[in-house]
């Protein structure tokens, strides 16, 4: 999936070069000269109109992004100028009070930590699923499982949130208590009481992004040339060695970009987190305590009772989320692009 754009972009460029010179300027050799000269002007305008129509759509997309950014910034600055706290370091969130005092520190912390923990849980398992489907499972079973994973990737997040709140959270109590009892000496797992914590939210997020990352990784692993795999096996490699020297290096950029997509989803996920977490505004290293909030969940929870400043404050925090996810995406693109340069022959 990710290895394709490079080669097909080349193809598109060549094709573009061919079409740019061929149809408008040079008449097709087959046509008679009279027909061509008669048709030329008309063809030219129609082509120009269509080309500019598609071009306008493309530029419209850029305009859309610009408008998104401008309006979010406009609304946000209005609220930020009224803020009496430091927006980046304050943990409290009282935008509706007068004077308003709010900061994004606690929610940003919750966003990053819950997404990171979700990634730590989900990515290895997702790669395992993808390997199972592409390498280990019998052929007929593997295409069926591929369907199932694709379908699970489409289950809406509100359903995962509902399930996390009503089914998973009660079941998570035991394991959280156990972690607290035996690993409490690590500050991360130390908690006075356990409940609907950042850890539970992370597990819900992990389960939610698992099929997404697995489905994309599966597609990448499917593209590993059979010849590479057979060559490794023919040299006497065991199945694991074959995976290590043929499948994983080839699929690495794809898996990284799939993970980054999952990370973006996890950070931007609103409803599943809003349903699971009790909204509280403090930075705490104790993953298991029933506390925490994320930017997206805070927007969903808080905007109903927000006044003008409050809405502006929520939009400002949304802007922070936008920037963070954009940075993640850009890093993912950079990793994939650099990987492709190194493993140029594989692409």
């Amino acid at each position, binding site marked *: 999936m990710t290895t394709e754009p490079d080669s097909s972009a080349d193809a598109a460029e060549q094709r573009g070069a061919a079409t740019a010179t061929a149809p408008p300027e040079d008449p097709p050799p087959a046509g008679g000269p009279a027909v061509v000269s008669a048709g030329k002007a008309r063809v030219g305008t129609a082509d120009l109109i269509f080309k500019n129509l598609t071009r306008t759509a493309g530029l419209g997309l850029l305009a859309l992004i610009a408008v998104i950014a401008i309006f979010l910034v406009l609304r946000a600055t209005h609220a930020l100028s009224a803020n009496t706290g430091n927006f980046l370091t304050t943990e409290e969130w009282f935008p509706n009070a007068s004077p308003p005092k709010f900061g994004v520190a606690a929610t940003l912390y919750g966003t990053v930590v819950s997404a990171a923990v979700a990634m730590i849980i989900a990515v290895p398992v997702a790669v395992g699923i993808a390997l199972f489907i592409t390498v280990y499972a019998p052929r007929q079973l593997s295409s069926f499982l591929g369907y199932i994973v694709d379908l699970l990737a489409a289950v809406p997040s509100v359903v995962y949130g509902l399930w996390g709140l*009503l089914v998973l959270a009660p079941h998570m109590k035991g394991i959280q208590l156990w972690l607290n009892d035996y690993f409490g000496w690590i500050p991360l797992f130390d908690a006075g009481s356990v409940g609907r914590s950042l850890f539970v939210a992370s597990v819900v997020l992990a389960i939610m992004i698992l099929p997404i990352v697995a489905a994309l990784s599966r597609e990448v692993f499917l593209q590993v040339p059979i010849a590479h795999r057979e060559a490794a096996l023919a040299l006497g490699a065991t*199945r694991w060695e074959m995976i290590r020297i043929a499948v994983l290096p080839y699929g690495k950029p794809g898996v990284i970009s799939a993970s980054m997509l999952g990370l973006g989803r996890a950070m931007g996920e609103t409803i599943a987190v809003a349903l699971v977490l009790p909204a509280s505004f403090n930075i705490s290293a104790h993953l298991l305590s029933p506390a925490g909030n994320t930017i997206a969940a805070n927007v969903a929870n808080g905007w109903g009772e927000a006044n003008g400043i409050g809405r502006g404050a929520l939009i400002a925090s949304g802007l922070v989320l936008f920037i963070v996810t954009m940075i993640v995406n850009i890093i993912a693109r950079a990793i994939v692009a650099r990987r492709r340069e190194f493993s140029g022959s594989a692409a």
Partner: protein
Amino acid sequence: MSTATVSGPAVDSGPDRLRLRGQSLPRWVPLAVAAGAVVVSLLIYLLTPVDSEIQIVLMAALGFVIAMTALSTAVEGGRRARDRFATTLVYTAFLLAVIPLVAVLVSVIGKGAGRLDAGFFTHSMNGIGARDVGGGIYHAIIGTVEQVLLASVLAVPFGLLVAIYLVEYGRGRVSRVISFFVDVLTGLPSIIAGLFILAFWVLALDQGFSGFAGALALAVLMIPTVVRSAEEMLKLVPNELREAGYALGVPQWRTILRVVVPTALPGIVTGVMLAVARVAGETAPVLLTVFGTNLINSNPFSGEQSSLPLYIYSQAGQPQQSAVDRAWAAALVLIIIIMVLNLAARLFAGRSRLK
């Protein structure tokens, strides 16, 4: 010399006297070890105070991995043991992942099916309190269908035009910038799309909450998906088809509209349906722009509407069992709609001539 090397393997090929293949575990061993791990953890579950199902499952998985690795290291050794370890891990990861994913589906079906009757589909929540047993999703279905249709009408032609520009005309800086920002939009969290329409349409232009505002937010989310999938499909159209069109004197725009796009159409339709299935389940943008209501409002251009995801969210947030039951039933309906869209998309993909 040459006869010796030829006859060499022939001698060894039978019963493996030189132990070239090494010792290996019989095929039933992994199954037996797995069964053993399950039994042991079940005993722990029944006999000790450890009573968390999740913990027991994790213990069984851990026990299986450790026992298999120990056995394999002892009997097979070295590279084979490492191979066995990887195999065990992959199988365990798969089984562990299947449990929660299947659990989600089972709980939705199990808890949702009971409330699914004709009345649930034909009634709104008008005058129904959280504690009351009745109520339905009629208004939410109307809202979802209208919002998603409007979003598709806005996003699909636009996305298709952008894809055509990127594939057929785009070269150089502009198209690279557009392509980059399509990626940025792909990663856009759905709540940002909602916030944007809230800031732009609802607050700045003062249009108020409406189904159309929700459709705008959903369209922002649909555009990148449509562009990307249409782009992939257009790139798959063989260049010979375009050249054949030009050779016959067909202008480029007609070649694109009459040859290239129809060839790629099944794939494009698949991409659009997957995009529709995705936005149909989006809650966050709809929450901020449509607001939600208990009444039937079939006019998407004025006044608050409801939608299925929004309905699930609002019902799930209430403590009463009757509200929670409604949430499960609505979740079941939403999943069924999305699965049907997905399956239909796959059927279309199967008809595609491009591979």
